[in-house]
């Protein structure tokens, strides 16, 4: 197919990850009383960023023929 689905997924996850990570690193600690004192934004944002990057890398590796 013309569109490699890993591109949009990877892009979206990387974007979501960056936004959450950025927000997590700049937001105050008391925001996280809800989430049992864990900064879920920064942590999970980081995870999403890595997942997004892996997807993009896979799409890139598959590219050469296109």
């Amino acid at each position, binding site marked *: 197919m*013309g569109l490699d689905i890993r591109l949009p997924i990877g892009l979206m996850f990387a974007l*979501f990850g960056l936004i959450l990570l950025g927000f997590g690193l700049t937001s105050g600690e008391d925001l*996280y009383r809800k989430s049992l004192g864990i900064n879920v934004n920064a942590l*999970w944002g980081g995870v999403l960023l890595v997942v997004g990057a892996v997807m993009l890398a896979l799409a890139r590796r598959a590219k050469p023929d296109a």
Partner: protein
Amino acid sequence: MERYSRERQGANAALNIQLAWIDYLLLILYLVFVLGIGFLLKRQMETSADFFLSGRSIPAWITGLAFLSANLGAQEVIGMAASGAKYGIATSHFYWVGAIPAMVFVGVFMIPFYYGSRARSVPEYLKLRFDEKTRGFNAISFAAMTVFSSGISMYAMGLLLQTLLGWDFNFSVLVSALIVLAYIFLGGLTSAIYNEVLQFFLIVAGFLPLVLLGLKDVGGWAGLQERLATVATNRGFASGAFTESWTPLTSPAANPMGVEWFGMVMGLGFVLSFGYWCTDFLVVQRAMAANSMSAARRTPLIAAIPKMLFPFLVILPGMIAIAMTESGSLSGFKLPAKPDGSLNYDLAIPMMLGHYFPPGVLGLGLTALLASFMSGMAGNVTAFNTVWTYDIYQAYIRRSASDAHYLWMGRMTTVFGILLSVGAAYMAASFNNIMDMLQLVFAFVNAPLFATFLLGMFWRRATGHGAFTGLAAGTAAAAVHHGLTLPHGAAAGIKGGWMGTLAAYPSEMAQNFWTAIWAWSCCFAITILVSLVTRPRPQEELRGLVCSLTERPAEGHLPWHQRPGLVGVLVMALVLLLNLLFW
């Protein structure tokens, strides 16, 4: 009607989660991506086969995740968590006894006929194998069912967003309908499938942190077991009734579901799950879009691997919610009560989202919830499109138009189907009983289907007259069984017993399972009897449609991970392991 409007008011007062700018940002970004995929695919939609079948060109891992995600609608996420809270880990039987073995079966044994026959839909297979009336029966009931289920799902979503966020019901329904409409209108089945894959990843990303936080809150699996032991003993069950999946199934009285192992394995497993996963065009359509026979057969097998882990994502939150509500946690989470005083299990996941998630991941979690609603809706709409255009319009209304005409018809049907779904959503909002009744009727029609396909694919003597009378008899048997039995404590009416009460079941679930078992057996027997006295079709006509007259797809030259048989055995071994671990 009265019940729902009361619920709406009560719930509105109870919780109002506030969203921050970052939550809206994530939500909007997601919508941009969803629509963007539709636009990017628009150029590829040149023929009706592109639109309805994705030109049979999609690799297995994508169709596999879409196969999983198309079924991951509202019922799955909200309903499974609710059942987890009500019945504990026994809910996992829907996966470990039900879905997974059925998915392996359809992949290994049935897809060769669906994909190999080049049928464009499940009803069309019935036409090729049996006759026109059997196809018509299936096509019409299926088309009606998809419209109503997408309507019900839309209604549930509107209600939930209203409860959680105070959003206007009309706004939520119309906006989500427009978005699904736009991306299917543009990119057809491919767009739906691609978005389903995106939604799959999003759903995992949105709910996984919820499960992890919830588990931490109750002190891990050990803490959860301890709390659920209290929950179980409070209700008069053995302490493991909520955390062991098989041990409490020795008798209906020993588990909260009120089901014993035979009803579970035969009713839920063999009849209902095989019936759904092996014959429902909504999911089978994804496999039909695969780019080769091997890819089509591996579609459900690839789906089965994440599917078997889904109980940890959708059932576990419900179990955690009930454990915290009845036996405490660090953060003091409590499930809200309905106006009548019973716990509102359906709010387990939405409430936990609001309870644990700060702005940021909250937006992610809500986006995941919305994604699950949309993927469920889109699955119904694409299936409706195809069945309407190929099996009703082309079969009975305009037989030989140009391909461009059918492509145009597919697009129009998307609009029309979504309008009908919106109508059904409003119908559900105002006439609650009609929806319950419709769902009941569809359940009657669906229960015997698997017998028809089983005989059609594996017994070449089965005839069209046999199949049709068998289906009709099975549907009638389901209705009669329902009309003569009643779950414990229910009043005669929509719950059963409307023809008098011959037998009572310990629970509604037990009644459902046995209704299905009766319907299936009746269809199986009648199809055989009628087939034996009617004229069989010549063997040449059945090549590629029946097991004994079809060459087995050669797979010896493929690497091990592309051989459906081998992958199927592997999947079954894994699911057996899960059953043993949580015995």
